[in-house]
């Protein structure tokens, strides 16, 4: 449940008060940005996409119902936007016959060993694992985000990735 302060900010922002929305951005920025970095493996691109996510959310804020959680709503906007960006990057990389961003992480490094292992996972495994284990989405919800992936595949990826991380030498 969102506290009354957040609710008031949302209500004010829906009435067009930009300062209230700025405060909402402040509160949620780090969370969305971290997810963007984990998805895109590039801090500069993650910053740009984070900005776009918040601007998109502002433009669609009027559609946020009172019974909806702002946090869940914002995260779903972010996930769709990030998956879209990954698709665009993939197409661009295919065109220039490079695969720097999708398969390898040479720009983002975490001080946390476990997170570092996640960041080195292939794109699909990484995204599905983050959505399930960090963002706490169910298999069905993940399938709704990633149309081209079946429930069985998601489940199999989760099991394999857990196995990979547990057995990773660096992790233990």
């Amino acid at each position, binding site marked *: 449940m969102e506290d009354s*302060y957040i609710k*008031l*900010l949302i209500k004010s922002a829906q009435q067009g008060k*930009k*300062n*209230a*929305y*700025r*405060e909402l*951005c*402040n509160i949620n*920025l*780090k*969370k969305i*940005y*971290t997810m963007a*970095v*984990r998805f895109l493996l590039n*801090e*500069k691109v*993650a*910053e*740009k996409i*984070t*900005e*776009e996510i*918040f*601007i998109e959310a*502002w*433009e669609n804020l009027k559609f946020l119902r009172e019974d909806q959680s702002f946090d869940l709503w914002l995260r779903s906007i972010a996930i769709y936007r990030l998956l879209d960006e990954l698709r665009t990057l993939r197409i661009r990389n295919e065109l220039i016959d490079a695969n720097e961003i999708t398969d390898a992480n040479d720009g*983002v490094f*975490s*001080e*946390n060993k*476990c*997170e570092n292992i996640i960041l080195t996972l292939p794109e699909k495994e990484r995204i599905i694992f983050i959505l399930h*284990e*960090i963002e706490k989405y169910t298999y069905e919800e993940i399938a709704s985000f990633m149309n081209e992936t079946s429930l069985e595949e998601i*489940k199999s990826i*989760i*099991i394999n990735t*857990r196995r990979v*991380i*547990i057995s990773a030498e660096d992790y233990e």
Partner: protein
Amino acid sequence: MNNNKFEILLHDYFDNLLSPEQVKEFEEYLLDNIDMAIELGKLKTLRRRLNNLPSTFSPDPIVIEHIYNSLLEGKKEEQLTEVSDEVEEKVVEKSKGKKKKEKKEKRLKAKTKYRLKILFVVLFFILVIGVITRGYLYYSKKNKTTPWQVEMINVSDGNSIEKTVEVNSAVLTSENERALISIANIGKIELKGKSKILILEGTRSENKIIFSYGYLAFTPMPQNKAFLVKVKNLLLKSEQSKFKIVSTDKSYNINIETSFITILNNEHKFKIPLEHEFTLLNNNTISIPLNKKTSIRFSKLVKNYMLSGNEKTLESLIAAAGKTDVFSLHYLLYNVPPVYREKILVKLHKLFPALTESNKEKILFLDERELNFLWDELFSLSQFTR
């Protein structure tokens, strides 16, 4: 294959995807399979670590500025500056600390605004309630009509005139006149001969008058809560009490017929019960209240003591007091030295052995609560023995 099946089961169990029967079955299997139990432990450790995963990535504070600027400009998308230029990087790096501070301050500002908003709403409501209350009081004050019906009767010819009276007006009767005043829900007042009262408050719940002179008899109605009479600087409060006030050239005699009245002066609050009478003295005190059924000897001793203040008379008075005189003795507690207070207490206990052993010290120091408690007890005991 078999192993793979159990591994899937392990993950389903870990993700709470099994039915209660399957859970039971799997837990039984775990008891016999230590390797699977170890795997489950590893999964739990992994989840714990993931749940506590620190957020190691922090966005540049400039991101917020960009979002906000985009909102201000009303643009759907804003071109992000390509922060590749080293010089610009340095500038951003330098401003990071400052912006972080600004960000924190701005966040505080928004919270302060929220609190101020709440405070403003509360103050506004207080103001509205205040205005309504003042308006009501102003209206009540302005509204001078009273629920008083006055019947002025000429004693010599029996003719009568009915009239209503307003707040701050006086009711006067002459030598051969009588006024019968009926107050809705409160009671009746009778004025006789040359009398005068002034109405200070006259509503269905609160009635307050000033008794100037003459004869006043008040009879309450059962639902009456309080009727206040100001006589000189004393305030008499009748709670279901029928009483009379008669003034002479020198004094005011007050006679209580039912229940009790409370006398409030600047120092104390006394209660005088039914069947007692007392006189209002010139120095705004009252005489020792006397029971109408008291002995002639006690009455004389009281009068002598009031005139002389002689301690021997006081001792005789205490000794001569009977059950009818307990309220005279109670009143004396306020007006005699502590050594006589102690004697009065002994006498009261002698007259009413059933009296609770009250806190003597507190009574000797005239503790209002303890004295009231004693009064209430005396009142119920004297009612019982009547």
